[in-house]
């Protein structure tokens, strides 16, 4: 009986503890976050590259007097604009996923743990070759 009660009290104490220390971020989840962040970086780079193509094509289009040249540029521009829509949808959906995951992993109230979190994330990203 004595042992049973001791175990009961011990179990009560243990159940009060936070399930995982804020500092001990689940490594697998951090890896997953890093993978998604890597993908977001890649999409962001594609987005900027595409934005450049769009603005430079629009510039050329405004300066082109030749009808055939103008049609060709317009056709190219339409293709870029379609790509932009697709990229935008992907980017927004991924942003929501990353934001929610980050929110569940980030140790908001502990600055030291935050620093460790950032360092760990940056380190994983670096190891994956994600230059951000």
């Amino acid at each position, binding site marked *: 009986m004595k042992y049973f009660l*001791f175990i009961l*009290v011990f179990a009560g104490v243990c159940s009060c503890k936070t399930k995982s220390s804020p500092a001990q971020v689940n490594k697998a989840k951090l890896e997953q976050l890093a993978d998604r962040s890597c993908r977001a970086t890649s999409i962001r780079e594609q987005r900027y590259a595409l934005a450049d193509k769009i603005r430079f094509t629009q510039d050329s289009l405004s300066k082109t007097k030749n009808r055939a040249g103008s049609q060709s540029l317009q056709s190219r521009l339409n293709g870029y604009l379609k790509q932009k829509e697709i990229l935008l949808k992907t980017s927004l959906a991924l942003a929501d996923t990353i934001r929610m995951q980050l929110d569940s992993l980030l140790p908001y109230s502990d600055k030291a743990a935050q620093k460790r979190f950032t360092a760990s994330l940056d380190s994983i990203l670096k190891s994956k070759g994600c230059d951000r």
Partner: protein
Amino acid sequence: MKKQYFHAASVILLFVFIVSCRKESSNSNRLTVSGLSRATRSYSSDQIRNYFTLMCTITKSTKGFYPTQAARAYGYVGVAAYEAVVNGIPGALSLSGQLNGISGVPKPTANVEYNWAVSSNAAIADMMRDMFDVNLTVANRAKIDSTEAANLAVLSAGVSTDVVSRSVQYGKAVTAAVYQASTSDGAHQSYLDPFQLPYTLPSVDYCWEPTNPAAPNPVSPKWGSNRPFMTVNISNTNPVAPTTYSTTAGSDFYKLALDVYHQVKNNTADQVAIVKYWADDPFNTCTPAGHTFNIMNQLLKENNATLEKASVAYAKLSIAENDAFISCWKGKYQYVLIRPVTYIQKNIDANFKTVIGTPPFPAYTSGHSYESGAGTMIFTDLFTDGSGKYDFTDYSQIQYGYSARHYANFNDMAQECADSRFYGGIHYNPDNTEGLRLGRMIGDNINKMLVWPTNIK
């Protein structure tokens, strides 16, 4: 007998452990203002922060929400959110009567109980639907509806149906009054006509020209005529006249453009990263104002803010962002200053290209600088001793594939945001310095000239 005592003692010990582990202190639940309703500070800020996170998602996926329209939407949501809970904050004064145009916000009925979190939930959901209204997509409307229903389910647990019903109705009535006020500020449903056509640019040699052939009209040319929340935020924030325009090589204006040119040509990799980090372009992100609200979301969570502090914080920032964009846009269309890219291509290098695209409106002053200056003053007041010192890492851009950026002081963060526009070739330096100065004045006005509750938690 001995066994029985031991048994009883163990059970009591276990009970003590369980009770002491409960997250919410029962003392906080007893805090009241009227004696019947729980104080606003006894509620978590989770639901209000979730709504402002959702604001970002909706802003970037709703047609017509350029930086001006976004700042206004955030503005009215923040004001309604505060008004819905102000009667549960000791010593707090309604913004009704303190802010231009905001009047007749209903008061709660005396001597009956309200649940301020339930009121806040109803008020915010209604105001979000109102602000995006006609252009709100089915999917985004469903997100607001489901957030509202989920919050209500949690908040109404254990609360009498009378109190829930009364609190919901009160929140809705608050929003109805604030929304009614918004319809006369000069920008009602402005997302339907973000270019405010017809608009004719003046015929002056320094005049802004389209920087993108696909965007021939400038955004929100009449925004400066909107009614601000505080008159002083417009009347006392006139920018100094910009440097006298000249195309003469060696003139002061030419030198400003040359500075931009050399900066863009010699940007370091880190400076290019800063340009993109703060670009906050509409429809890809939730605009500069949305970025600042995302920072506020993080700060509130870091500081374990209750619904009380969160509601005050969002109200302050909402007023700041709304008025910063009105004041900034007033100056932009007063001076209609040509963008660096146009000037440089005409006078310095025809092949000059900026790091990112130039947004479609005049240069002077910088909207980014204005809004980050205003926001920084609000952060400084709420989270520092007045110095702006705060060990802050901005995680809000990780969702877009950026690394977190660290700052030791909110002022450093605002300065970097302003500098990013110079590095990008988007602004001349004085656009940023003057924008920051005036934005800070607006933030300061909000902190000091409105009556806010003290000792908020």
